[in-house]
């Protein structure tokens, strides 16, 4: 009953009456010492919950945690509660539960005890504050553990790890890459492009039917030539071709053979001729 009354007073009436107070509390979050009444110059967002607040109040008043003057601490606690409603309703629920716990303990401690009760039940009679004290002591350890972790966190946040590789490292891929040395496929395309540019049509006569060549045919031809000699040069391979279309077909055949890992291409020096060889693993011979 009593707790409910206080709660009502604390959360509605008192705050409306003390807008200046509430404003000062808010200021105190940023201005620290000067703002707010000295008693409440606490930074509100420092408190992580009712236990945290209680511990603070106990430590500030230099009270023995095993012998908490419950009436005093309850008043202090409720005074704080009046100020947080404006600021952080989210946590108000948790703080209210503690308020009612405090009120209950206070009430139990005020109950007069008959001499017989004291004599009979001295052994069993439990201090109404006991459970609260245990929770506070345990919470102190939580804070201690959190402080330990904070120190570790600060220390280790100075170390930066390699950011988890989102992309396969090109360098790692190279040994498997049928393109030897520093030759990339872009280089290959570049080389093909310059061959296309320097191409002078030999047989391209308008209307003249050109033999249809498939990429497959070209692939087989390249493999066949490689079975007779260790390498073919790019320039030579393309120089014998009659049309741009056949050059494209041949180039696609090369790309396909690279993809199938049947051949390797290599460029010994920058802008040098490109050398095509059989892939080492390619012992499958001709199809």
């Amino acid at each position, binding site marked *: 009953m009593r707790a409910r009354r206080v709660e009502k007073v604390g959360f509605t009436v008192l705050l409306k009456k003390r807008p200046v107070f509430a404003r000062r509390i808010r200021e105190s979050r940023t201005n620290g010492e000067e703002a707010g009444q000295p008693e409440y110059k606490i930074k509100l967002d420092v408190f992580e919950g009712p236990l945290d607040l209680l511990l603070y109040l106990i430590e500030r008043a230099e009270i023995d945690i095993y012998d908490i003057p419950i009436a005093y601490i309850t008043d202090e606690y409720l005074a704080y509660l009046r100020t947080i409603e404006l600021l952080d309703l989210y946590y108000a*629920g948790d703080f209210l539960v503690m308020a009612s716990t405090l009120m209950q303990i206070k009430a139990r401690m005020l109950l007069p005890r008959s001499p017989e009760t004291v004599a009979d039940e001295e052994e069993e009679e439990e201090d109404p504050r006991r459970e609260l004290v245990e929770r506070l002591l345990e919470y102190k350890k*939580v804070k201690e*553990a959190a402080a330990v972790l904070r120190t570790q*966190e600060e220390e280790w946040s100075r170390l930066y790890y390699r950011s988890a590789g989102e992309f396969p490292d090109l360098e790692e891929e190279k040994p498997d890459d049928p393109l030897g040395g520093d030759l990339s496929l872009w280089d290959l395309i570049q080389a093909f492009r310059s061959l296309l540019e320097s191409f002078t049509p030999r047989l391209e006569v308008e209307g003249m039917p050109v033999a249809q060549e498939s990429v497959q045919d070209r692939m087989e031809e390249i493999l066949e030539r490689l079975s007779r000699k260790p390498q073919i040069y790019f320039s030579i391979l393309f120089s014998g071709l009659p049309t741009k279309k056949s050059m494209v077909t041949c180039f696609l055949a090369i790309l396909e053979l690279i993809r199938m890992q049947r051949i390797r291409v290599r460029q010994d020096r920058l802008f040098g001729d490109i050398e095509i060889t059989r892939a080492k693993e390619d012992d499958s011979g001709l199809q």
Partner: protein
Amino acid sequence: MGFNKVRGIIEALVFASSEPVRLREIAEILGIHEYTVRDLLDDLMSEYSQNQRGIQITQVAGGYQFATNPAYADFIKKMKKTPRHTPLSQAALETLAIIAYKQPVTRAEIEALRGVSVDSSLNTLLERGLIEEKGRKDGPGRPILYATTGNFLKYFGLNDLSELPAIEDWTVAGVAVESIMNIDH
């Protein structure tokens, strides 16, 4: 394989992994004894620790991993493409402390200790990969149990949970240690 090459491969393996690499894994890949790997790693580590080098090999979360020299953190912070280290909020840290020392633990148990609801800190910690769900507790409602991850160890520079500083009569649940040490990928 020559000494330099084996050492080079170990260096490459430690670098390539985005998580701490275990001795055992390196030993298996190279087909050599773990103690040989350890010797070579010790050697590499001491080499990196000299001459104000920018990077070093750290021993963390039960494995080895490259990291920058902490002395240069201020310069790294100035760089645009740097992963930001946002410190945990006090609320998240308290929740995490409870999980670290009491694991595996239910939400209700954490809330009893902290005296507040811990929904949002649990979410933060799960998102940052510092904790994970670890089965369910027997009993009414079969509540979810939470435990710390390998990432937790890495974040706080611990090799395993036994390295958590002792808090008066809080002991880390011994049974859980081995399984928690396994880094998830």
